[in-house]
């Protein structure tokens, strides 16, 4: 059962609204616009799922997922990647994310994917 979701996206507009949308489904949400601060936050907050953008200025989303998969405590953390370019679906599956959703996304579709990983 997924309760706590960490969202990481350098676009704060997307970050805020996506957070509010997921809260409206009853999830507890944490937001992180700076990908270089994400891994320590995941270690301390221990979310049930990570929703992460791919193209970010400090550390790219795919690199973060690669690093998380190498660590024992996050190797099986449910991860959904979201991005505006559709070729990112391939990147997501290559680095070992559980799922992928294209931007702009439909919240019901996103929620279905989250529920499926619970």
């Amino acid at each position: 059962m997924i309760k706590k979701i960490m969202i990481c996206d350098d676009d704060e507009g997307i970050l805020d609204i996506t957070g509010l949308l997921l809260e409206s489904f009853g999830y507890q949400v944490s937001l992180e616009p700076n990908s270089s601060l994400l891994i320590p936050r995941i270690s301390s907050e221990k979310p049930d799922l990570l929703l992460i953008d791919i193209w970010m200025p400090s550390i790219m989303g795919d690199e973060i997922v690669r690093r998380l998969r190498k660590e024992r405590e996050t190797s099986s953390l449910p991860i959904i990647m979201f991005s505006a370019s559709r070729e990112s679906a391939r990147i997501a599956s290559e680095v070992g994310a559980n799922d992928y959703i294209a931007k702009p996304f439909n919240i019901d579709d996103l929620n279905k994917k989250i529920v499926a990983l619970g």
Partner: protein
Amino acid sequence: MEKQAILAAIIDSSEDAIISKTIEGYITSWNQAAERMFGYREEEVIGKHISILIPKDRLNEEDMIIDCVRHGQRIQHFRTIRLRKDGHLLPISLTVSPVKSRDGSIIGASKIARDISELLAVQEEKARLYEQVRTLNDKKDEFIGLASHELKTPLTTIMASLQLTQRMLPDDTSHMIKNTLAKTKTHVDKLGYLITDLLDASKISSGEIELAVHPFDLNAMVTDVVNRLQKLYDSYTFRINGFASNYYMGDKTRLEQVMLHLLTNSIKFSPPGSMIYIHLSRLSDFIKISITDTGLGVDYAYQKKIFDTFFRVDEIQKQYPGIGIGLYISNQIIKKHKGTLWVESTIGEGATFSFTLPLKYNV
């Protein structure tokens, strides 16, 4: 005698330089074209060694040429550079043939040199223009790619805000507000598809499109897309018949995109209230999906062209605006799956768009 006079006239009127030399390389004859081409008059060069025409870094070419001539071989259309009297270099195409005496021994060589500077200039210009077009085309694709990616970021926020507003609406919100929001959402969706199409077209033409191949239920995918459209366009009636495959290996999202394009095309060009038929079938080693409408139809003359990028039939552009990349993208996606997409139509009576997909292929 007369024959010799004719030959001499031919040689003098030739546009190509015609020169003869001894086997040791000393010039024995020199025509008018040679004068024009190399800048030496006949009396200046007769008896001189041919190397006066050869740039220093190419002197070894003469050894190679003489060697061939000694062995009775001919050199044809040899592209090289020669030196004019004024020091300028001249690109030429050279043909050298051995000259034999009556007893058959080789006593010299005849050289025909053609000035190819104009030809080379044209070739260079062509290559430059080709490179320019290629660069511009790459830049165009890169620009569309970047622009559509940038457009999607605010669109994602708009889309998410709209969905949030819809979810936050109190139960007693007026029908009008709910409807307005729903309509806005439909148009934002359309904008999203349009931007995705642009991005796809740029990726496809730059060869970057890649398939994410997984097994999926093709029948269910088609039914799902049709049901979604039926809800949005309730004045049309969609009828599905037949079965294709419940286990197909391919890119589900991309094939959904093809179905959406073909079906929305049918809707766009058919009058409200009409029927749209979706026929699924499975043959021994491939599946076939056809979409038939009773709309405008496609003129025979355009039945191949409509799959080209940005192609639009002029006369219908005003009435049915669009950017003309949907069929191009669909065709490329089907091709990537090693299938074929085509249309059969009689103008005014509707159209049938069909595609086949092989059941086994290597991506």
